[in-house]
C-alpha cells in the first residue's frame, strides 16, 4: 500500500513543479518581459488559470504529507521553519496579488499587486530551491550546496516561465483572426526568423536568428509572425513583444540553470553537500536534469525549452527519492482505507477538470478578464 502513497506524493510534487513552474516563472520574469500596462495585464491573465489549477497540487502535497506521512512531514519541516514561513508568505502575497490585481482601480494598486506577484514568485522559487537543497544535503540550509540548489531552482523556474510566456503572451486580438485566415502553420523558415518582427521595438532581434525564433503559439504559428501580420481590423498596435522577449530569454536562462546545476554538482562533495544514500541512482537522475538543460542551451533552445524545463522540474522529486532515504513509514491500514475510498471517487473529476482547464485556456491569454 505504501508504494501507492509514495507514488502519489511524488506525483503531486512533480505535477506542482511542472505546472506551477509556468506561472511562478512568468511571475518572476514579469518585470523583464512585460513592460507596459497592457503587457502586464496579459501576463497576469496568462498566469491566472495556471495558478488556479496548479496551487491545488501543492496544497494536496501538504495534505498528503500531513495525513499519510506525518513522520516525513515532521522530518522535512524540522529545522527548516524559517524557509517554510518564507514560502508561506511568498505564496500568500503572490496569490493575493494575482487575485486582486484585476480589482484595483488605480495604477498604484496595480503596482502594489505587481510587486506582490513578482516578489512572491521569487520567494517561492528560492524557498522551494532551499527546501530541495536542504533535503538533498541532509539538513543545512546555508551550505554552498543548498545555495547552488536554490540558484538552480530560480533559473529553472525562470526558464519554464520564459517558455510558457513565449507561447502565451501573444496578443489574442492579433492571434485570433490569424486562426481563421491561415489555419496551416507557417513554414519553418519563417519561424526561424522570429525575433525581430516588430519594427523599432526589438533591437538586434533579427540577428538572434534561430536562437530566438521558435516561439510559437498554441496553434503552431510563430509568435512574432502573428504580431507582424495582424489581420486588418485587429488592433494594429498589439504586438508580440513580450512573447519574443520571453522566447529570447530561454537560451540564456537554460545556460544559467545548467551552470547553477553544475555548481551544485561541484559543491555536492563539500561539507553540507549531498548525503547520498544511493550515489549511482542520484547521479543518474541528476544527469537527466543536466541533459535536459544542456539540450535547451544550444541552438534549438526555445523550441525545446517547454519540454526540457518540464522534464528537469519533474525529475526533482525523483532525485530526492533516489538520493535520500526519507522516513517513509507504511500508511496504517485503517487510514489507507479511509483515504483511498474517499479520494478514489474524486479522481475522475480531478483528471477531467485539470485536462479540461488547461485545454480550454491553451489559446493565447486574453488582454483582460477577471484576472489581470
Amino acid at each position, binding site marked *: 500500500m505504501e508504494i501507492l502513497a509514495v507514488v502519489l506524493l511524488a506525483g503531486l510534487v512533480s505535477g506542482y513543479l511542472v505546472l506551477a513552474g509556468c506561472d511562478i516563472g512568468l511571475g518572476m520574469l514579469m518585470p523583464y518581459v512585460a513592460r507596459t500596462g497592457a503587457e502586464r495585464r496579459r501576463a497576469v491573465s496568462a498566469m491566472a488559470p495556471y495558478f488556479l489549477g496548479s496551487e491545488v497540487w501543492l496544497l494536496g502535497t501538504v495534505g498528503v504529507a500531513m495525513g499519510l506521512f506525518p513522520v516525513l512531514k515532521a522530518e522535512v519541516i524540522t529545522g527548516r521553519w524559517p524557509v517554510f514561513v518564507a514560502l508561506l508568505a511568498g505564496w*500568500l502575497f503572490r496569490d493575493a496579488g494575482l487575485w486582486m490585481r484585476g480589482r484595483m482601480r488605480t495604477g498604484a494598486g496595480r503596482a502594489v499587486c505587481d510587486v506582490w506577484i513578482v516578489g512572491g514568485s521569487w520567494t517561492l522559487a528560492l524557498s522551494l530551491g532551499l527546501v530541495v537543497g536542504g533535503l538533498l544535503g541532509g539538513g543545512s540550509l546555508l551550505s554552498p550546496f543548498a545555495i547552488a540548489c536554490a540558484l538552480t531552482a530560480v533559473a529553472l523556474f525562470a526558464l519554464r516561465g520564459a517558455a510558457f510566456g513565449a507561447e502565451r503572451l501573444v496578443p489574442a486580438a492579433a492571434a485570433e483572426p490569424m486562426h481563421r485566415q491561415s489555419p496551416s502553420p507557417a513554414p519553418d523558415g519563417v519561424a526561424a526568423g522570429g525575433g525581430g518582427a516588430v519594427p523599432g521595438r526589438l533591437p538586434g532581434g533579427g540577428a538572434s536568428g534561430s536562437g530566438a525564433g521558435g516561439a510559437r503559439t498554441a496553434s503552431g504559428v510563430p509568435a512574432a509572425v502573428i504580431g507582424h501580420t495582424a489581420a486588418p481590423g485587429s488592433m494594429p498596435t498589439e504586438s508580440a513583444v513580450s512573447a519574443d522577449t520571453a522566447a529570447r530569454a530561454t537560451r540564456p536562462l537554460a545556460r544559467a540553470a545548467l551552470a547553477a546545476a553544475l555548481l551544485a554538482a561541484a559543491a555536492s562533495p563539500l561539507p553540507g553537500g549531498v548525503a547520498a544514500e544511493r550515489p549511482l541512482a542520484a547521479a543518474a537522475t541528476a544527469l537527466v536534469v543536466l541533459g535536459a538543460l544542456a539540450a535547451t542551451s544550444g541552438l534549438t533552445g526555445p523550441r525545446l525549452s517547454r519540454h526540457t524545463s518540464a522534464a528537469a522540474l519533474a525529475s526533482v522529486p525523483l532525485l530526492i527519492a533516489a538520493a535520500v532515504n526519507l522516513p517513509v513509514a507504511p500508511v496504517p491500514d485503517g487510514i489507507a482505507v479511509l483515504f483511498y475510498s474517499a479520494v478514489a471517487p474524486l479522481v475522475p473529476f480531478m483528471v477531467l477538470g485539470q485536462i479540461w482547464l488547461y485545454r480550454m485556456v491553451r489559446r493565447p491569454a486574453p488582454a483582460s478578464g477577471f484576472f489581470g
Partner: protein
Amino acid sequence: MFDLFQDPLLLARVQFALTASVHYIFVALTLGLAPFILFGQLGATLRRDEARMRAVRFWGGLYVVNYAMGVLSGLVMELQLALNWSGLGDMFGYAFGAPLAVETMGAFFVESTFLGLWIFGWDRMSRWAHLMCFAVVTGTAYLSAYWVLVANGFLRYPVGGLRIEDGTARVSDPAALMANPSTLMAFGHICLSALVLGSAVVIAVSAYHLARRNDPDRMFGRGIRWGTAVFALALYPTAHVGVMQFALYDRVPPGSGLTYGPEEIAAIEAEGSAPGFFDAFGDGLMMGSWALMSVITLVLLAVWLLRRLDRWRGVLWPLVLLPFLPYGASVGGWVLRETQRQPWAVEDLLTTADAMTDMTPSMAAVSFSLFTLAFAALATVTYVLLVRYARLGPELGPLAPLRTKGPAEGDDAELPTVHTF
C-alpha cells in the same frame, strides 16, 4: 501586550483563533452563496434567460472575490497546523491529518479546478456544461466542509477505535471516524448556518438596491424573496442542530484514557480550565444574534405577507446591516466550540500546550506579527472589494459581460472597469 509576546503558547493560540475566524467568515459566505448561484443558474439555463444569467454573473462575481480570501486564509491555516502545532501531528498525524489530506487532495483540488473552469468557461462551453461546473464547485465546497469537520470533530470527540503505538494514535475503525457524532452534528449546524449567512447577504445586497429603487432585470426583487425564504427556513433548524451538540459535551469520548488516567485528566482540567470568559462571550454572541434574527424573520415574513418586501424603505435600509448578525454568530460559535475544549487540543488525550511546536518566543512573535498583519490587510481589502462590488450592481461586477472595449495597448492607460471572460 508585552506578556502576550513572551508566551509562545498564547501567541500561537491567538494566531490560530484569528486565522480560523477569518478563514471561516469567508468560507461561510462561500458555502452560503453557492446554492443561490447554483439554483439561479439552473433557472437561467432551463429558461434560456439572459436576464437571470446576468444576476448569476453578479452574485458569482461576489462569490469569486470572496472565494479568493477563503483560499488564502485556508492555506495559511493548513500550513500553520503543520508549522505551529506539530505535537498534534506527531501523535494524531493519521487520525487528524488524513481527513485534511482528503479535503485538500480531493475536495479542494476539484473545487478549485472547477471554479477555474467556471470562471474561464463563460461563453466558451455549452450552458449545461457550465452549469455542471458550478454544481461540482458547490458539491465539493460542502464536501470540503465535511472533511474539515471530520478532523475538527475528532479533536472534540476522539473516536475511531484508537490505540496508541509508538507514541502515535492508530485508527482501526475509519467508518467511526467518518460517522463521528461530533462531526455530523457540527456539519449540519455549519451547513444550515452558512445558508442563514448567505441568505442574509443576499437580502442585504438586494435591500440596498431596492431601497435605491434600482432593480435591473428584477433580480433584487427575486433576491430578497428567495433570501427571506431561505433565511426563515434555515434559522430555526440551525439553532436546533446547534443545541443538540451540547448533549455530546457531557459524554466521555471513547478514546479517553489512552494517554492519561481519569485522575490525571481531572487534574489537568482543574489546573488549566479556561477562565470561562471566552465561552460566555462566544455563547452570548451566537445566541444573542440568533434571537435578534428570529425577530427580524417575523418582521420580514409579515412585510412579505403585506406584499411590501421590495418597497418599504423603512424596512429595507436597516436590512443592509443584517449580515453582521450571522457573521457575529458564526465567529461566536467557533470561539465557543474551540475554547470549550481547552485545555485539551484532543479531548482527554493531548493538551494544547503539548500540541504546540517547540518555538522560541521570537519565532512565535515573528510568525504572529507577519501573518496577523498580512491577514488584517488582505481581509480588509477583500471586504472593501465585496462591499464595492455589491454596491456597484450587476453592470460593473467582476464577472459582468463586456460592454465597452478596453483601451488597446495604451501604455498604462490601464484598465477598463468592465471585464469579461
